[in-house]
């Protein structure tokens, strides 16, 4: 049993209206000093066995084909400490 985290973020060149809406709202709510916000997705993938290289390769493939759309998104995979 292990937990693998997949983070998916829009590529920097792709407009992120959700992040922008948050960034715009912040000053009104009294938060100063934030220059940018980007919103992405975080997946917690629980796997049966140990998070060995084979399992991670599997999750990476999952991220590449399903969890992220690589036309517009980047992803990263890591084992939760």
């Amino acid at each position, binding site marked *: 049993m292990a937990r693998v985290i997949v983070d998916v973020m829009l590529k920097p060149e792709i*407009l992120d*209206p*959700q992040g922008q*809406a948050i960034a715009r709202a912040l000053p009104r709510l009294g938060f100063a000093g934030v220059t940018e916000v980007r919103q992405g997705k975080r997946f917690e993938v629980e796997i049966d066995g140990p998070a060995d290289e084979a399992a991670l390769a599997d999750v990476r493939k999952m991220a590449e084909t399903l*969890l992220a759309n690589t*036309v*517009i998104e980047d992803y990263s995979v890591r084992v939760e400490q």
Partner: protein
Amino acid sequence: MSETSARRSRVEGYESMGAARVGVVTFPGTLDDQDAARAVRHAGGEAVPLWHADRDLKGVDAVFLPGGFSYGDYLRCGAISRFAPLMEELIPSARAGLPVLGTCNGFQILCEAHLLPGALTRNENLHYVCRDQRILVENATTAWTGDYAPGQEILLPVKHGEGRYVADAATITALEDGGQIVFRYLGGNPNGSVNDIAGVSNEAGNIVGLMPHPEHAVEDLTGAPGVDGRGFFSSILKRFVNL
């Protein structure tokens, strides 16, 4: 004769097109399949239901991927559907020239399946939008737009939360140069799409995807005002009659 009885008699002039068979795909969560099938029948074609889990295109002449929320639009619109067994059949056939139309969720699926370039992302104002939208038909040479005049303006409903078309700059340039921008929004962009893009085609012009819904603009009684969506169905049916 009331409009209701009128709807039963097929649109004049297309009686002879009964032979063309258009597959209409149903994924779990597809919503507009019945509407799409009705629009096909209304234009005089035969609508053939295709089930996502069957690896069988039933020998259809063309395929319509209708709108909806397949798999709840969870994860990303179209992300899970594109792996359906039916898609494993459809993808090579489409690449080989089978005419395929994707509207709304169908467009999203075609992009996810890389049959069309680019991707559809969350509307810029973050709200779902349902409204009657003016659309410019820029390319009237695709399999699905032959019955329109290039430059024709039509009215179709849009209804989506993730219809903002994006692609990298090189892709957009290639699409613009290659005449692959088939439809553009007029009179206000409903979702923030780059270059007001409402729909695109592949290079060969047999695969077309768009966010607006032609199947909801084929009858006077129901749906959007007018019947501007009929051209999609007459275009594809004529193609097969003329073969």
